[in-house]
């Protein structure tokens, strides 16, 4: 019994973890707000709520960099309607609580004209009510589980309907795979992606031998790996949280000697590269790979390299849509002749921009048909493009919005 008191207070300290995160988040928000001095009204403000801390902290810097390049290029060419663009970056802590603060600050204090950002689904969902209240156009630039619909929301990245099909089709048609095993992290994106995968595989006559989820911070995949081993599927499809869970699952699969066809819905090029030999053979499906052979992509990569030098974060499927979205917003402002939110919302699906991923137009129920690439990781860590699929339709995402 004597142990119960210190134990209770220790638990209290454990419970204090989130507030530490929130504190750091708040500190970073302050830092970023201070570093960008408020300017007079002649600028158009672009709010970028992004996960500088938390789960997205690995990828967020590349997103900010590509937004900075777009703004610099546009301002160097005379701005938009004679006005300069200005970025206001706020840390959303990669989660709901941080996002509410970040959106509140950007929408009501900084009074940004538009929000353009890649975020976690939790952060997006928490921010949307604030977007509705503030009536600000919001271009979401992260791939996600789909079917998030709001009057002010546009999306220029992929949804499961676009990403899953290339991998599953390749496995079933080229490798004659019939049985599948699905593994994911327990959160909106992981479950959404695998739910779609299951339906798609079953609609094509494939069989799901198992569907397993682990907690988001799981580091030990032993029970799931044992289940995969006994189910013995032809192919494996995974959709974990980015970063550590993805890495630990892949390493432990390889260590257990499981050498099935392996489609990873959540790995990006950079992570695959740093995983080394363990990543060899993994199939990935993306709307952007650095090896895309187009003039726009080469120009973009050269400009990024020149602007950021050795500090460059490799551009990726989350940062390139951010770059293109800034240009899409510019096109909309020029078409409207101003920044009026309602008018911008009306024309955002009419404008298009030819960027590193090709021509992007958010013309299908607030989402964009995209060219998807199927890649396979080579032993040297590079990603070889095996096939590309032009203008893959996002499907019925928001039938109630035009």
């Amino acid at each position, binding site marked *: *019994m004597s*142990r*119960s008191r*210190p*134990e209770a*207070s*220790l638990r209290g*300290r*454990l419970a204090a973890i989130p507030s*530490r995160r929130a504190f750091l988040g708040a500190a970073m928000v302050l830092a970023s707000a201070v570093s960008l001095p408020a300017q007079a009204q002649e600028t158009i403000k672009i709010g970028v709520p992004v996960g500088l801390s938390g789960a997205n*902290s*690995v990828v967020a810097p590349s997103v900010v960099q590509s937004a900075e390049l777009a703004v610099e290029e546009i301002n160097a060419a005379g701005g938009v309607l004679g006005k300069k663009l200005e970025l206001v970056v706020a840390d959303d802590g990669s989660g709901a609580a941080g996002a509410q603060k970040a959106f509140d600050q950007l929408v009501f204090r900084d009074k940004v004209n538009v929000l353009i950002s890649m975020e976690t689904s939790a952060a997006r969902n928490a921010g949307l009510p604030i977007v509705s209240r503030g009536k600000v156009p919001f271009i979401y630039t992260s791939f996600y589980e789909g079917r998030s619909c709001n009057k002010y929301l546009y999306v220029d990245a992929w949804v499961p309907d676009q990403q899953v099909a290339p991998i599953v089709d390749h496995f079933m048609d080229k490798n004659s795979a019939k049985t599948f095993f699905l593994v994911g992290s*327990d959160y909106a994106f992981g479950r959404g992606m695998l739910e779609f995968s299951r339906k798609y595989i079953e609609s094509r006559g494939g069989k799901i031998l198992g569907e*397993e*989820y*682990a*907690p988001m*911070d*799981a*580091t*030990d995949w*032993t*029970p*799931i790996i*044992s*289940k995969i*081993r*006994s189910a013995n599927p032809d192919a494996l499809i995974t959709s974990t949280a980015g*970063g*550590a869970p993805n*890495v*630990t699952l892949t*390493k*432990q699969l*390889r*260590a*257990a*000697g499981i050498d099935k066809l392996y489609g990873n819905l959540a790995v990006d090029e950079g*992570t695959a590269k*740093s*995983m*080394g030999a363990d990543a060899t053979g993994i199939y990935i499906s993306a709307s952007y790979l650095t090896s895309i052979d187009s003039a726009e992509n080469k120009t973009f990569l050269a400009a990024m390299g020149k602007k950021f030098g050795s500090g460059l974060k490799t551009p990726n499927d989350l940062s390139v849509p951010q770059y293109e979205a800034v240009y899409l917003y510019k096109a909309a402002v020029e078409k409207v002749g101003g920044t009026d939110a309602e008018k911008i919302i009306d024309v955002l699906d009419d404008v298009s921009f030819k960027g590193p991923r090709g021509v992007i137009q958010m013309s299908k129920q607030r989402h964009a048909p995209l060219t998807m690439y199927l890649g396979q990781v080579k032993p040297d860590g590079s990603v070889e493009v095996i096939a590309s699929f032009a203008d893959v339709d996002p499907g019925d995402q928001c039938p109630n919005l035009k």
Partner: protein
Amino acid sequence: MQVLILDIVTTAAILFAVSCGLLISFGVLKIINFAHGAFLTIGGYSALVVTQMGWDPLLAYPFSLLVGLVLGAAVERFIVKPLYDRPLDAILATWGLGIVISQVITIVFGRGVQFVQSPVTGAVELFDGSYSVYRLAATGGAVIIGGLLALLMHRTRLGLNARAVIMNENLAQALGINSSSVRLIAFGLGAGLASLAGAIITPLSSVDPNMGVPWLVNAFMLVLVAGSSLLALLIGSVVLGGLQLVISTYGSPILGGLTIAVAAALLLRIRPKGFVLD
């Protein structure tokens, strides 16, 4: 079934390796070292340094142990010792220290996920399937650590002194045992073992600034049910680790993730001594 038993044994071994450092410092100092997770992380990054320097991957283990010992001893002298009379503040200090360590690691090595070369890779044919060689090797490592610790505690003068301090520090002091140096050694050894465990888990895990956090909670719960007994820790690792694995396998890994914390809390409710036998 054989695979399940193998999974339970290897899981328990890894849990034991991760928790035993915390148990040693808790036993002697009577405070939970909340920087334990950070010391695991330090071990992971020590292994990373070995990889980056191009040294033999086996060197990661002595190197991480040494780094942990030195840093742990320094922490005891400069942070924990001045707070001997304020145990709750000492716990809070280790908590803060954990935050500082993970931030310093972020500054030095970056936030990204990094990779450590493993001394053994691949799988071995066992029973009716293949099994990860590294998990088996890690189990062997945990057995060696446990064995050496038991010898140290029960067959050496230092172990005798440590056990005396654990039982009754005032009496031990009165008998001429320098409890201050026992505390220093115990805390340093605990941190060194945590760091070694961090290096041991790296080939199964990723190396990132927060890699120790998920392990800290389980290690903490195991030490609560084990008190200061190595044997109780071994029993706890097998029983609670096995329970976690069975629930993850036949139920869901999401419930499995809660198992150790919930089961340990229930156990303490029913039996406040936990797995301590005497």
